[in-house]
């Protein structure tokens, strides 16, 4: 089927019609509808390149009770995504070509988005021995991003070697920056709120010291470094300094760190328990400024679904993490567009273009231009909706935004020219044989 998107504001700017033929953008301009196309009315909608997430946890293999590649990629499609990176902390860990190919194939069979497996940096995420990075890079999954996410590659020598080694495969190390000794038993941001709540604190310096070390290592060995989920104002300053120095570093921020603060922990509701923890208002503002000035390159959701029993408990027993795929674009609009910090073209850059470049994701994050693969998202920026986790496609009900009214709704998602979402609802997956 071919599609004619009528009257879309491309990147929130010029209003054009876009014709999709055989999975590619065939024409942009003023286009008459013909009998062989399905017309999509995009009046008052913004057309973006399909979103690319640098950071999700799809839980499969191993924790299919929390999420599967299929449910996670359905959530992604509903959130406007056409590609997601799936972190390596599954069971078994994605530290071999076999596991990454399994995840890749599950994604292909599901057909909602491109699922790009992330390979573990070290065997079993144990931080002792490099995993078979070359085999994963050369597998059908063509892994380019390597991360022990959830755990910091703490050993400085091992981190140095990893940064060096991935250069042979044009890879990137995505670091979860968390000094382990400074965060033993840590439950929340260390500061005024933790002092009152009597919670073991998670100091900002535990993140910042690792980032400072890693940018210097990346400079020393001339490697590419990606910093996952930056959460403190100090981290933003260090990355700003590193970029000014010419170090090849990219940085990611989650939607929740752009909006929520540690004040929420006063409820002791574990839906707010996350790694890295929610920080102070000053950090939220510094992260937004970091996105606005280009210090922070991309939005990564760190989508982390959990079964209800992992959150319907006391704080100390609860799992860390929040869902995010189906709310990310709304939070970006709320915190960055409606505050005047970003244009929709900037949104395309941080949610699609640069994430695809970091992960070297073929056919994603491209310009909206004739001849390009039709990975596209239509969003209604005027819509307002109330977040209801029970209505989401993800199996996780652990959204920290539950009950909030948010702006912006994804109306349609095109995945290689196939509509995975229409009228704001899941349509059909793309055939794996297409």
């Amino acid at each position, binding site marked *: 089927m071919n599609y004619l998107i009528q009257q879309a504001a491309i990147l929130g700017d010029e209003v054009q019609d876009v014709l999709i033929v055989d999975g590619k953008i065939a024409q942009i301009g003023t286009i008459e509808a013909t009998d062989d196309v399905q017309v999509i009315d995009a009046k008052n909608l913004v057309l973006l390149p399909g979103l690319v997430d640098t950071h999700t946890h799809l839980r499969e293999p191993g924790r299919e009770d929390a999420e599967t590649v299929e449910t996670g990629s359905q959530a992604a499609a509903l959130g406007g995504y056409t590609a997601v990176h799936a972190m390596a902390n599954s069971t078994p860990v994605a530290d071999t070509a076999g596991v990454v190919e399994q995840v890749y194939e599950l994604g292909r069979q599901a057909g909602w988005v491109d699922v790009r497996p992330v390979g573990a940096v070290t065997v079993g995420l144990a931080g002792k021995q490099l995993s078979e990075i070359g085999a994963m890079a050369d597998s059908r999954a063509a892994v380019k991003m390597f991360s022990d996410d959830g755990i910091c590659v703490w050993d400085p020598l091992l981190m140095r070697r990893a940064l060096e080694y991935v250069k042979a495969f044009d890879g990137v190390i995505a670091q979860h920056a968390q000094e382990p000794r400074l965060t033993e038993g840590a439950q929340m941001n260390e500061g005024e709120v933790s002092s*009152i709540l*009597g*919670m073991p604190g998670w100091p900002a310096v535990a993140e910042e010291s690792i980032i400072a070390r890693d940018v210097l290592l990346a400079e020393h060995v001339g490697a590419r470094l990606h910093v996952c989920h930056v959460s403190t104002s100090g981290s933003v300053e260090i990355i700003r300094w590193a970029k000014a120095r010419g170090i090849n570093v990219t940085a990611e921020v989650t939607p929740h760190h752009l909006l929520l603060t540690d004040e929420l922990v006063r409820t002791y509701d574990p839906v707010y328990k996350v790694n890295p923890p929610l920080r102070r208002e000053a950090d939220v503002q510094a992260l937004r400024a970091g996105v606005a000035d280009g210090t922070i390159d991309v939005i990564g959701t760190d989508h982390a679904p959990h079964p209800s029993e992992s959150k319907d408990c006391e704080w100390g027993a609860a799992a860390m993490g929040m869902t995010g795929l189906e709310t990310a674009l709304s939070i970006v609009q709320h915190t960055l567009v409606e505050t005047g910090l970003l244009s929709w073209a900037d949104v395309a850059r941080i949610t699609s273009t640069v994430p695809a470049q970091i992960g070297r994701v073929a056919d994603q994050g491209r310009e909206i231009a004739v001849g390009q693969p039709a990975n596209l998202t239509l969003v209604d920026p005027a819509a307002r909706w109330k977040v209801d986790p029970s209505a989401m496609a993800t199996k996780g009900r652990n959204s920290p935004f539950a009950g909030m009214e948010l702006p912006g709704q994804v109306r349609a998602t095109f995945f290689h020219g196939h509509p995975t979402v229409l009228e704001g609802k899941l349509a059909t997956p793309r055939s794996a044989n297409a």
Partner: protein
Amino acid sequence: MKHLLSTADLTREEAIAILDIAEEMRESGTRAIKKLPALRGRTVVNLFFEDSTRTRISFEAAAKRLSADVINFSAKGSSVSKGESLKDTAQTLLAIGADAVVIRHPDSGAPARLAATDWIGLPIVNAGDGTHEHPTQALLDAFTLRRQVALRNGTNPLGQGLDGLKVAIVGDILHSRVARSNLWLLKTLGAEVTMVAPPTLLPVGAHSWPCTISYDLDAVIASGIDALMMLRVQGERMNAAYFPNPREYSRYWGLDDARLATLDASGAQTLIMHPGPMNRGLEISSAAADSPRSTVLDQVTNGVAVRMASLYMLLSGDLI
């Protein structure tokens, strides 16, 4: 008052009402027949996920003197050690017929979570949660302090706060739920609070607390203090590099014989308080613990009265 979770939740009027009822309860405890019929037929569960003999028996005595039935639940060797969740444990106790839950838990916020969720809907008394709060300890400390000052001045404690009293809390503030509960309650009742500790045992963020912070115990004692609350220092803290060794801790932050002698020589009426259990020779010397200034055993006696008042207020309807 629906729950007793944190002293920060108490208004001055509520706090004084609890202390005043505790005075009546204490008086009843001096009679030959100590038992009151107030909570006959009600069941109080002591849900203890952490070892604590002192607090548990104090709550048990309080409930029994009010004629309530008491069920003691200890996590050790129970279904909890087999992985049962707090939710399931609490709901099991509800199904057994509990009317109120007294909970001690190693996680900060566990009692608040039990109160905020729809798990059981019973009145909750926080008997100590992690390093967060221990509100009945603070109430019994305030009760003891108020009563001692009234005795000294020959006045009636009823209806009074702690206005203008100077209290120093000394020791492991970082890990102390007693310190946090005392801070909020003492402030609410009008006292001035100074926290004294090595910097390693003060939380980052304590600068925002409504108190003075000092590293110098001698200077604080010399400034004239109505009560010194000495906190227990756990020996394992030195393994985590909070201080070099017990000797050095005692030398700088312990109430040792030399500091006791300084107090006695100054003529100050400073009371010495300790929530127990004490590490004699570490944060407090035997001479200090056993001196006439010490209220340690008085605190234990008053603890039963304060816990009776708390249970009575939670279980016998809207008194305030």
